[in-house]
């Protein structure tokens, strides 16, 4: 064997090891959390409120809270994100505006999540006076979801062939009619992927809701958009850092982590599958 062959073999093995390390990490996270969390999960765990100073009972209010926060964030971010994507792909007249918007979207995507939390605290909680509430939390999470929705929608809209637009315009449809009746329906699966991806992202975020929405414990369920909520990710954090029964709390935290992980990963998996199918259709 030549020396260069040996080098090549070693190099390729190293690359394989790098890829394998990802699988090992993902596998061990899922394995350990599933192995130790599975015993905590029961019907009661999913449907009951916490009892006995967080040492027993379930996490139902946290599940409900996460649902409300995520729903609110999507309701806020979807119209804005979609409009932005439509503008950038269908209208955007001049180069510098597109550039400016693209740079600001990229930078918004890179802002640390705790900074969103401070922004939400100052603007929504204090300035608008929404208080620590579902509304403040949803708006804060919505801003965080915006770049995800914009870039997925943009990808979906760009994938719609130009010829379809031209055909519609040639039939006498106006630009808006073309967008609404032709382009958006064609791009719908891709846009849906973006929404699903953002749900996965938003449901797992903790730092933005620390000061804007989340509470460790509440009696019953939230009554309006102005009440504070329990949320699954924050619940895990609180169980690990507050309270006085670390052992029982860690057990519940395992269950909650498994629940959150299962929720977020299945949501992302759905998005990945839809997108894979979508790309296949256009490539074929």
């Amino acid at each position, binding site marked *: 064997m030549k020396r260069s062959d040996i080098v*090549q073999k070693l*190099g*390729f093995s190293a*690359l394989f*090891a*790098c*890829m394998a*390390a*990802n*699988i090992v*990490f*993902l596998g061990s*996270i899922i394995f350990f*959390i599933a192995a130790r969390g599975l015993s905590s999960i029961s019907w009661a765990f999913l449907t009951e409120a916490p009892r006995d100073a967080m040492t027993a009972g379930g996490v139902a209010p946290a599940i409900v809270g996460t649902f409300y926060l995520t729903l609110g964030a999507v309701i806020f971010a979807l119209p804005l994100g979609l*409009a*932005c994507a*439509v*503008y*950038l792909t*269908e209208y955007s007249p001049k180069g510098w505006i597109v550039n400016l*918007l693209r*740079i600001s*979207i*990229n*930078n918004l995507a*890179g*802002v*640390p*999540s*705790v*900074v969103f939390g*401070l*922004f939400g605290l*100052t*603007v929504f909680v204090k300035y608008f006076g929404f208080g620590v509430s579902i509304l403040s939390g949803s708006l804060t999470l919505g801003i965080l979801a*915006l770049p995800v929705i914009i870039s997925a929608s943009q990808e979906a809209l760009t994938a719609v062939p130009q010829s379809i637009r031209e055909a519609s315009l040639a039939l006498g449809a*106006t*630009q*808006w009619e073309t967008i609404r009746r032709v382009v958006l329906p064609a791009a719908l699966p891709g846009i849906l992927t973006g929404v699903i991806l953002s749900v*996965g992202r938003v*449901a*797992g975020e*903790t*730092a933005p809701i*620390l*000061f804007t929405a989340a509470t460790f414990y509440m009696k019953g369920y939230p009554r309006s958009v102005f009440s504070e909520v329990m949320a699954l*990710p*924050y619940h*895990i*954090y609180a169980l*690990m*850092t507050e309270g006085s029964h670390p052992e029982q709390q860690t057990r519940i*935290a395992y269950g909650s*982590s498994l629940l*959150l*992980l299962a929720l*977020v*990963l299945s949501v992302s*998996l759905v998005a*990945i599958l839809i997108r894979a199918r979508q790309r296949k259709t256009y490539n074929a």
Partner: protein
Amino acid sequence: MNKRKERAIKYIFTALAFSSLVFLVGIVFVLFKEALPIFTKISPKAFLLGKSWYPTSSPPEFGILPLILASLWVTLGALFICVPLGVGSALYLHELAGPRQRTLLKPVIEILASVPSIVYGFFGMVILAPFLQNTFNLPIGLCVLTTSVILGVMATPTVASIAEDALSYVPRSFREASFAVGADRWQTLTKVIIPAAGSGISTAIILGMSRAIGETMTVLMVAGGSAVIPHSLFDPVRPMTAAIAAEMGEAPVGSDHYHALFAIALILFLITFAFNIAAELISRRFRLKLGHSR
């Protein structure tokens, strides 16, 4: 009539499209507005270079050097993990994996990216920290080392996916030319393809760093929390994000401590902003160099 409606719709879309810019500017405005009052009490130099962070003692001390150094240590530590793993995986996916393997392996990376940071933090706290503590006989498990490992794993998907994009921009002709002069696959990879994609790969690394330094929940749970200047990999630390998240709830609104935490957030924002702009500039030049206009 119809024309007017079309114009109105266009204006509505234009206005909505600017929302991300508005939010970004809003974030900058809020950070400056809430951070500036602290600098009437303490000079920016004393704030940045002060060695003690005792925000609640009297008199309080607001020196954030220990927090900045903590962030730098864990971020640099993370680079030792996410650069080899991220770039290595991207090269594997691009060069070695067949189409079948790619369809299975790419989702692994995407799923690794979608694991919530609180779950990484929890995993680090209950599994990784005790494991490293026992293996290396450490005095405490929650330290720079554990944090770096977890942050490295978290940043790996970012590096891998952007680096893979960069590799796909390298034209086929480069590879064919290299094979034509008798180079084997490894030589082509290291001498032709990696240099050609070099600035794209560095963009990937910068964005990975940006991800690591801004990460909050993980470091809050795993870094150990003590606000002293780290001297070794096994010291517990309190990075900037952890200080903000841990202390904001207790700082009275409008107090010096409150403004100081916003000032930390401002510095953090400026660091990540600089990273993102640098990545943007490098990647634009990279694409132009390889003849892509977008």
